[in-house]
Structure formats: structure tokens, C-alpha cells
């Protein structure tokens, strides 16, 4: 049997060893607090500046469509966004497109607003979930109270102080879509023309949003936990985004190291075969 060189062994390395190395890398950088200053990317800067233009009392729609699977990326975004909105003293309502997203967003937003001194019904409300986003948006554009009818606690939304004077989606200043799926085209296509759209996707979905960012249809974007990290830096408040962002950074470095190693191994093993 041919003697396998180290380069051959590196090329054929058991993937479980790779997984173990990555696992250790992530754990180390999750547990060890590393102070790394990030530079704010243009989409995050635009996101922050857009929310900074809000005035106290403005109304914002937060569309929270993520569930347990993407908690690592979307939760830091949701927390940072809600805390920024509370800092600006704007009113907001939360809506989801599926039951698990409703439950998760209701729990977390309730916690953040309790900490921020916001009162349910007066400063914020949760509309529960709408089964079809497109039908829901079209309905809200025409007549919001008739489309939503009641909030997640069963109270008719017309009775909520936060919804006083609100008839349609046009009464909102902006919609912030926090999602792991492709829901933002629906908001862009069917919203009232003056409704600003901000987007918080997972990193994977961010690539397809650059066209909307470029054309101005999306005013700003937070890309996964990295975007949340940059945003927290602007808010001067460290949260989950900072912790996760650091772990992601060093994981990327590890992957690149192994890609280079793999190519060196390929080159050396070809040389050994040729020799």
C-alpha cells in the first residue's frame, strides 16, 4: 500500500475533525470577551441614520418573521432595533406571518419593553400573525383595523391607545422587516409609496437585498449578527450581536486558514505525485 504523505492525509481529512476544530474555535471566542472595534458598513449606517430621523410619537411597524432556527442572527437585530426605537420614544407595533414567529417575538419584545419602561397598549402592541403577508399588506393599506381586528391578547386594536387615529398602513412612518426569508419584496411591492422599508435579514438572505439597497427601495440593512454588532456599536450598547459577531469573525479566519491549507496540500500532493 502506498505511503500516504501528510498532504494526502490533509486532503482526505475526516470532516468530523474539521467540525471539532470549528466547534472549539466558536466556544473559545464566545466565552472569551474580545474587544474588537468594527467599522460601520454603509448599509448599517443608513439603517441607523434612518431611525435617527424619527420623532417621538411616530409609528413604526416591526415585522418579525423569524423562529427558533435563526435566533442567533435575528434576536440580536430585534433587540437592537427595539432598544433604538424606545430610545427615540416612537410607538411601534409588531406583526408576524406564522405562529412560532408570533410567540417568539411577543416573548422577547415583552421582555425588552419591560426593561425599557414601555407599556403594552399605550406605547407598543403586537398584532399576532397574519397567514398571508401579501393579503395582509394589501388589507392594511386599505383598512388596517378591519384587516387586523385584534391584537395578540384578543383586544380589538381600535381600543388600543397606541392605535388611536391609525386607519391604514400609510399612517406609519416605516416598516422594519426582521426575517430569515424573502418577505421584503412583498413589503416593497405593496406598501404605500411613502412608507420607508428597513431590512434585517440573516446573512444568507442579505446578498439578494443589495439590489433593493442600491435602488433605494430599502433604506438600510443589518446583515445578520455582524450587522447587529455594528449597530450596537453605533448605539454604544454591547449586546448579543457583539458577542456573536466576534465568534463569527474568528470562525471566518479559521475557514480561510483551512482553505489556504487545503490548496497548499493539493499543490504539494500533486508535486509529490509528479516527482
Amino acid at each position, binding site marked *: 500500500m502506498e505511503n500516504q504523505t501528510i498532504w494526502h492525509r490533509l486532503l482526505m*481529512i475526516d*470532516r468530523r475533525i*474539521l*467540525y471539532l476544530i*470549528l*466547534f472549539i474555535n*466558536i466556544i473559545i471566542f464566545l466565552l472569551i470577551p474580545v474587544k*474588537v*472595534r*468594527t*467599522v460601520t*458598513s*454603509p448599509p448599517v449606517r443608513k439603517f441607523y441614520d434612518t431611525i435617527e430621523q424619527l420623532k417621538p410619537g411616530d409609528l413604526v411597524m416591526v415585522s418579525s418573521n423569524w*423562529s*427558533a*432556527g*435563526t*435566533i*442567533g442572527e435575528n434576536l440580536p437585530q430585534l433587540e437592537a432595533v427595539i432598544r433604538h426605537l424606545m430610545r427615540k420614544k416612537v410607538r411601534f407595533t409588531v406583526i408576524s406571518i406564522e405562529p*412560532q414567529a408570533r*410567540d*417568539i417575538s411577543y416573548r422577547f419584545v415583552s421582555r425588552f419593553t419591560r426593561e425599557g419602561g414601555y407599556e403594552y397598549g399605550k406605547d407598543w402592541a403586537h398584532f399576532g400573525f397574519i*397567514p*398571508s403577508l*401579501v*393579503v395582509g399588506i*394589501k*388589507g392594511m393599506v386599505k383598512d388596517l383595523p378591519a384587516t387586523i381586528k385584534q391584537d395578540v391578547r*384578543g383586544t380589538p386594536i381600535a381600543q388600543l391607545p397606541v392605535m388611536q387615529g391609525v386607519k391604514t398602513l400609510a399612517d406609519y412612518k416605516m416598516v422594519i422587516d426582521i426575517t430569515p426569508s424573502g418577505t421584503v419584496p412583498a413589503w416593497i411591492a405593496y406598501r404605500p409609496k411613502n412608507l420607508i422599508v428597513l431590512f434585517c435579514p440573516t446573512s444568507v438572505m442579505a*446578498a*439578494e437585498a*443589495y*439590489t433593493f*439597497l*442600491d435602488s433605494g427601495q430599502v433604506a438600510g440593512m443589518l*446583515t445578520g449578527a*455582524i450587522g447587529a*454588532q455594528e449597530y450596537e456599536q453605533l448605539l454604544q450598547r454591547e449586546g448579543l450581536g457583539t458577542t456573536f*459577531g*466576534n465568534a*463569527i*469573525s*474568528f*470562525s*471566518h*479566519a*479559521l*475557514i*480561510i486558514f*483551512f*482553505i489556504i491549507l*487545503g*490548496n497548499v496540500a*493539493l*499543490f504539494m500532493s500533486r508535486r509529490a505525485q509528479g516527482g
Partner: protein
Amino acid sequence: MWQIETGTTAGKIYVTLIVLAFLALFMGLIPVMQVLPPRGRRALIALVTFFAGLVFAAEFFLPVNKEGENLLSPAIEPAQNTLQIIGAMALALGTYGLIRLHLRNIVQQRSQWGYSVVLIVAFLTMGFFSVWNTLAEKGELPKTTVLERGFGLLFDNMLVPLESAMFSLIAFYIFSAAYRAFRIRSIEASILMFTAMVVMIGIVSLGNIISYQWLGLPLEQTAEMEKNPFSLRNIGYNLALPRIAYWILQALNAPVQRAIEFGVGIAGLAMAIRLWLSLERGIT
């Protein structure tokens, strides 16, 4: 005409008549379909498909009034709600198929029937607590400690970590896929590899460390740099990894994506037209 006031007697009679009419239509359709020759059956299906699609197409093209509605606009929401109801019925069918398969595995003790036991037990347990929780939230059933603890255990302590764990697998799979695939085998593979590496480093804080701390590249563009775009400082500013990564995403990724989306959109429209006009044999 599309919105019915179900509170009134007239509304209730109207709803009953519509439901009976549809039932009669479908009951009558079955023997008609059996009696018709295949060509006739295809023609009938094509006719129904055409008129069903015509509602949506006509609603889009017909002129609208000041409120942005036309004659067919009130029909769209009930039509879309009907599609959702059909989807819900199909969900029941799918769930039945799943349960039937796994119950059969258990009864006949087919290979790996243990997994089927796990599925059935998990399905029944989660279903029971979920329904109880939903009814308790509406106030129709009492919210007891058993429910809170049980639902909390199943949702917070099992479902959430399990779904997160499945999503986290992607990180590990990306590692093994990148290690295997990003090799300098051809020009295209090399371009793919270098672009991926630059974007991966450029979008995270490590790119900032390398560009701004280790290499000392300028962080911001000054007025002087703008006036002299070919100055060393301005070139350095633009060669920072975060700026290159952002340029790749904005100037390379976005146009290519637009091009692909154009093609996909046109192809999707063409297929929809073929299906609407029954020109597509496809799955029928």
C-alpha cells in the same frame, strides 16, 4: 356581492344557498367528468383554469376608480382566502399520510420502526400541548401549571434548541464544503475562491483589523483624497478589505443578481401564461 353580511337572516340564507350551489356543482361534476371522453375532460379543465386565472388577470388590467379598486377587486381577497383554506385541507391530508406511514411502520415492525415511535409520540405530545395552549390563551380552557411547564419544556427547552441546532449545522457544513470545493483547479474555481475569501474577511471585524490596524490604511476619505483620486492615500483607502468586500457585494453581486432575477421572472411569467392557457402538458 363578494362580501356577505352573515349576521342578518338574508346573509345566512345567501351563504347557505352559495354553499349548496357549490356542493351541487362539485357533486354534479364527478359524474360529468366520468362520462366525458378524455378530450372533453381536458377541455372542461382548460375552461375552468382559464376562467379562474382570468379573474386575477382582469383585476390587474381593468381601470380603477379613485379608491384604486375596480369591479373585481373585492373578489381577490375571498379568492386568496379560499386558496389558503384549500392549503389547510391539504395539510390535513399530508399529516394523515405521514401518520399512516409511521403507524404502519410500527404495526408491521419494519426496519428502523423505533424512529416512527419517536415521531408519533412527539407529534401527539406537542399537538396536545399546543392546542391546549392556544385555547388557554383565548380563555376557553384554564391555564394550569401543568400546561405552562409542559408547553415551556416542549417549546423553550426542546423545539427552540432543536431548530437552532439544525440551523447551526449549516456553519459546520459550510466549513467542510468550503474546504473541499475552494481549490485552485481552474480559473473559474480560483476566482470563486479568492472572491469568497475577500468577502468573508472583509465583512467581519477581522477585515478592519488587517486593513486599518495592521496595514494602517486610511479609515475615511478626506477632501484632499477626493481631489486626488490617484494619490497613494486614496488608493490605499479603496483597497481596504471592507471596502473591496462591499464593492463586490454592491457592484458585482447586485447586477448579476438582477440579471438572473430578470430571467427567472420572465420565465416564471411565461410558464404562468402556459399554465393559464393550458398550453403546458407538464404534470397533467
